[in-house]
């Protein structure tokens, strides 16, 4: 089998990969000495993919909110019983998660790796949706949704996304709502499955003490005979998203200990993926760390004024058609925090970051990146996340070191635009 290798000099790690005739991409990173072997099988399909054209017919379909996550739960049903049991019999631990842009099925095991990998490949490729199964899942996921609704932080974040975006589906909760999931039926699940769970829209990542060639051969032996026809990329239909925010302020009242505050800045016209997207991701993360991290003047001022505490943070998130940073935490006075933050960011946009500030957070980011490579979960999930967005986790490390202070300051002035900011506040009941 033809395979290629990518190598990181700094990390001293390599990834062996290939693309099978069905379009499935398979990646393996050998990590000798680790007990655990970890495999993830992912579809480029997340909660934002709620409108698309069906392959073949070209028919446009709009599906209920939360269906990608619902489908993820339902793949654990098979004809014999529950998928959990078959992994338990192998001593393997299986799980899955759905994000805005991907759905991932994974297991980790210290024994019976080959059998577990077969089982993973098999259950993800064998949907079994029934009216009874769907009914049962509605009860479980309703409780999952209500659990999140009781978390003030979850409400804070969801309200912020609804304020930042007019139409883009990133504003919709990944799990959907108690009402939307009641509209899900087996037929719609199958339509989504057939559209997004084709090998050409999926990838496998394996990491641990494994023989890469043996893993590639095993995946090919499983997927090859299933006779998938080649298929062009799925056509996803995202609504037109205006550059401005939908609302500049949203407030809620919930049982919470103290007020919660989140400030969002929305990108206009973010690249949908690829190297330009990665660069923006890297630069923005560095800007946030330098501007608002624990070593920044602004953080120290806010901390001394008792407006923020240890839980205060800032992060950037971007995908197809969306990009925003979220800044915030618990505070005694959300209005005062907002005023001081906006003032501080405006001051920073005027002064610009100093060369030394950027170098320090670059050093920090490089060191933290190396530390993450002791986590097999981080490697596999991080790699596929970036890969699905047309970027590479290894390239992330290179890009981190290349950013200049001019580039960081350009980004800082562009991103912290008060006209594209929204605030979400949750006040205690």
């Amino acid at each position, binding site marked *: 089998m033809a395979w290629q290798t990518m190598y990181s000099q700094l990390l001293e790690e390599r990834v062996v990969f290939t693309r099978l005739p069905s379009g499935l991409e398979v990646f393996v990173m050998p990590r000798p000495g680790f007990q655990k072997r970890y495999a993830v099988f992912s579809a480029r399909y997340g909660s934002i993919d709620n409108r698309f054209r069906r392959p073949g017919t070209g028919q446009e379909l709009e599906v209920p909110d939360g269906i990608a996550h619902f489908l993820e739960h339902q793949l654990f049903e098979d004809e014999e019983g529950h998928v959990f049991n078959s992994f*338990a019999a192998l001593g393997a631990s299986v799980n899955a998660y759905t994000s805005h842009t991907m759905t991932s099925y994974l297991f980790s095991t210290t024994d019976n790796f080959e059998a577990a990998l077969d089982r993973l490949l098999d259950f993800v490729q064998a949907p079994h949706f029934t009216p009874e199964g769907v009914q049962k899942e509605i009860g479980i996921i309703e409780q999952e949704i209500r659990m999140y609704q009781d978390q003030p932080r979850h409400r804070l974040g969801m309200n912020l996304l609804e304020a930042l975006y007019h139409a883009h589906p990133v504003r919709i909760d990944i799990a959907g709502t108690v009402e939307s999931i009641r509209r899900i039926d087996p037929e719609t699940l199958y339509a989504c499955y057939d559209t997004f769970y084709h090998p050409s829209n999926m990838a496998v990542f394996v990491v641990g003490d494994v023989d890469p060639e043996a893993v590639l051969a095993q995946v090919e032996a499983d997927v090859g005979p299933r006779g998938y026809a080649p298929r062009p990329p799925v056509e996803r239909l995202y609504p037109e998203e205006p550059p401005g925010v939908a609302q500049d302020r949203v407030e809620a009242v919930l049982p919470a*200990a103290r007020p919660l505050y989140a400030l969002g800045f929305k990108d206009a016209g973010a690249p949908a993926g690829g190297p330009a997207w990665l660069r923006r991701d890297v630069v923005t993360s560095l800007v946030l760390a330098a501007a608002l991290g624990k070593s920044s003047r602004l953080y120290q001022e806010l901390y001394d004024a008792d407006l923020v505490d240890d839980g205060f943070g800032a992060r950037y998130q971007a995908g197809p058609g969306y990009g925003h940073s979220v800044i915030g935490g618990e505070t005694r006075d959300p209005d005062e925090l907002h005023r001081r933050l906006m003032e501080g960011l405006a001051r920073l946009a005027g002064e610009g970051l100093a060369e030394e500030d950027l170098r320090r957070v670059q050093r920090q980011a490089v060191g933290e990146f190396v530390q993450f490579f002791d986590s097999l979960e981080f490697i596999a999930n991080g790699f596929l996340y970036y890969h699905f967005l047309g970027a590479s986790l290894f390239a992330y490390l290179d890009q981190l070191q290349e950013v200049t202070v001019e580039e960081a300051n350009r980004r800082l002035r562009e991103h912290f635009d008060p006209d594209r900011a929204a605030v979400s506040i949750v006040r205690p009941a």
Partner: protein
Amino acid sequence: MHAQFETMAIDRGFHLHVAPTDKFKTTTIKLVLRRSLRAGEHTRTAVIPFVLRRGTQSLPTVRDIARHLENMYGAGFSVDIGKIGETQNIELFMEVAHDRFLPEKLGLTERALAFLGQVLLTPATEDGVFRREYVAQEAEHLRRRIQSTINHKPQYALKRLREEMCRGEPFGLHKYGDEAELGQVGPGQLYEHYRHLLASSPVDVFVVGPVEPGAVAGWVKEHLALPRGQVEGAIPAVQGPDPQGRPEQVVAEEQPVQQGVLALGYRTGTRYPDDDYPALLVYNGILGGFPHSKLFVNVREKASLAYFASSHLEASKGIMTVVAGIAAEKYPQALAIIREQVAALADGAIADQELEHTRKGLINALLSGRDSPGRIIGGRVVGLINGRVRPVPALIEEIRAVTRDDVVRVAQRVRPDTVYFLRSPAAGAEEEGH
């Protein structure tokens, strides 16, 4: 290939445990000061690590420390209080990338130990004691942290369950102290308490990573020359017996929640150092430790009542908790199902498959733990506190040998203690607004 700890005595009641391994790109360091959890000092003890984190004489502010750590290629530094059984432990934690994987060779492991030495030995002070401002702020932050548990309802329910269940026992004390006492902590008495702790508490330093034990010992002696005095002898994992002959208590609390949280507390009668501990692990695994467990299968998969339903051990104390998020009106049904599953185990209703899957799941979890420096160290700390270190290979052999009879014997010792239910004020109120 597997990290084995080598233990060295550094000073009176001060030990270094080094597990060298090339498998990790990171060196992980944890320093633990062990105390008995007791009213009267637990609030002051809780504040100390957070005040220490605020500054040293040469790095007097959070910002100075953050800059220092960023320049060490993003060295991780955190502090916390660990509560294991009825002990309250000050924990300082550091994580540094190995020089080999960085663009510059800075000797980060030694620098990390030197930094810890600075934090412990030369904290920022004024008038010879901790800075008043830092003490007041950090005590207030801890008070808020305790209160913020309410933002996460399952955690809040478990906290309330433990309080109700262990009222009057040291275990019932919060690891971050007493809310009222936190308002009264002053810098002078706190500093005095700190000097006393530093001299009298057993100290253990754990280092896991690509290091050479001899070199680490040299650095620890050089940078962590703690002023040792009369060190307290044994610090027991529990300070007294379980309460006897108490009827099961039921506690309900109302809040405007979307989802009710049911939490049950049991006294296991078996603890970490006991020979039956491996059987207790299997017992808990069969009941609610895995997705194949009785609680997950019966509460979630069969009855569709919950998204989460699981059981957890606090084996250093001898407590098991069960927690499930349910609709408020399903309380009687969920409670009945949970009690049935607990009773089934005591009656020996355990399928071969449940036993086998649970053994395998526990072994997988133990072996996987060897890939995590944090879990390697955590297992060692629990062993030291319980006076019985259980090396992973030995524990795995013991789990393999656990029989159904062993599980039933353990199950019959388990006693229900407290039922706690967090719910919305009126049934049906969760439908509001729809």
